[in-house]
């Protein structure tokens, strides 16, 4: 069996996932990349997209994140995100609706800052919708994660 690395997914509100994985695929600022144990230390940005965890050659979990940072070291992969949700927990209709709403926001924006904010939201909504379309089906393997990721914006 391949060597594993410690994978951690952290949002400002809680530690979402902390478990070993064989490989993690991360939506980096410059495109998706996979991290295996013994990876060269690196810090990258994370774009809105889907993180995939692999164990024993299969995807064990797909988590949608809205962007953040990754720190990779020899034995560890830490992802800091604003918010995260399991792909199969995303409401497809709502995701689609969000894309439409935010598109309107971008069109309605009256000034530059407003438009930038709306565009950022739209990008996240689009990525979320894509994630549902691509991976929305039932998953083959039930996940064994310690803490179920929930929407980052959950109230206290």
């Amino acid at each position, binding site marked *: 069996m391949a060597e594993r690395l410690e994978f951690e997914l952290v949002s400002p*509100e809680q530690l979402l996932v902390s478990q070993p994985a064989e490989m993690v695929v991360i939506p980096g600022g410059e495109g998706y990349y996979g991290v295996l144990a013994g990876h060269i230390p690196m810090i990258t940005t994370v774009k809105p997209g889907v993180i995939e965890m692999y164990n024993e050659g299969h995807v064990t979990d797909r988590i949608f994140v809205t962007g953040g940072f990754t720190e990779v070291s020899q034995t560890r992969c830490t992802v800091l995100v604003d918010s995260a949700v399991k792909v199969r927990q995303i409401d497809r209709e709502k995701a689609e609706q969000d894309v439409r709403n935010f598109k309107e926001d971008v069109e309605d924006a009256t000034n530059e800052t407003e438009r930038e904010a709306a565009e950022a939201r739209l990008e996240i909504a689009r990525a979320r919708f894509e994630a549902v379309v691509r991976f929305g089906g039932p998953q083959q393997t039930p996940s064994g994660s310690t803490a179920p990721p929930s929407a980052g*914006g959950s109230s206290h």
Partner: protein
Amino acid sequence: MPSLKDLKNRIGSVKSTQKITSAMKMVAASKLRRAQEAVEASRPYAERMDRMMSAMAAAFEEGDYTPKMIRGTGEDKVRLIVVITSDRGLCGGLNSGMVRTVRRDLQSLAADGKEVKLICVGRKGRDLLRREYGSLIIDAHEDVGKTQSAYEVATTISEKMARMYEDGGYDIGSVYYSKFKSVISQEVTLQQLVPVPPPAVPEEEEVIIGRTVQEEPKVEYEFEPDQEQVLAALLPRNLTVQVYRALLESGASEQGARMTAMDNATRNAGEMINNLTLTYNRTRQAYITNELIEIISGAEAL
């Protein structure tokens, strides 16, 4: 001498006040637990963010491009101050202590001829500062954790701060918050946020939080897209985390202070009830004695 009926009413009203204060204490205690959990839950993120920041700092070499947020504007004319207080009162001297410190500092800043801009979080701080410094308040937030989660508020504030800083809106940005030391002790704390202060000697608490995780050998990191862009994205996020931490600390402080205040109030009410009951019994006895005397002397006169 107060009549028996008055005393009875008085005791009744103090008793119901005591019920209210002890209920408030219970509520504060359970809210405090939740607030503390939120502080705990936010730590992993902050720790890892710190680790990344120090990795970034270590990777920087002399002569590299440094963003404005680290370099500073080179001036100190305009201050931006974020004041975090609670929305509700009845939490002892928490808000008044905070506002007193802020007022004192605002006065000395004004004496130095500096311009000040205020962002108030929490209804109490805004109300208390509005009369004197209303013209300085550029933004106010309330209902943190109710209509908006604390992180959303932190994001709003930090984005505004970053934007204003880029536009040259101020030179130094800092935050006043109540640091939660224990249930009975909260401390008004001033923390500079912008420009990012150089890593100082870590405070006691931070040693406990930050260093026990794992002491790791120094490693050289690669950056993707590149160092500059990662840093440019990391800095605003770090600001958000700092504001978020301040908000959570203040939230815990508020509940702690309220719990202590209500505990005292309950105890005082209890003392008051004891005193009043004593007076009530004495008075009742005096009345009875009087009546007896009247009856006896009436009988003797026959």
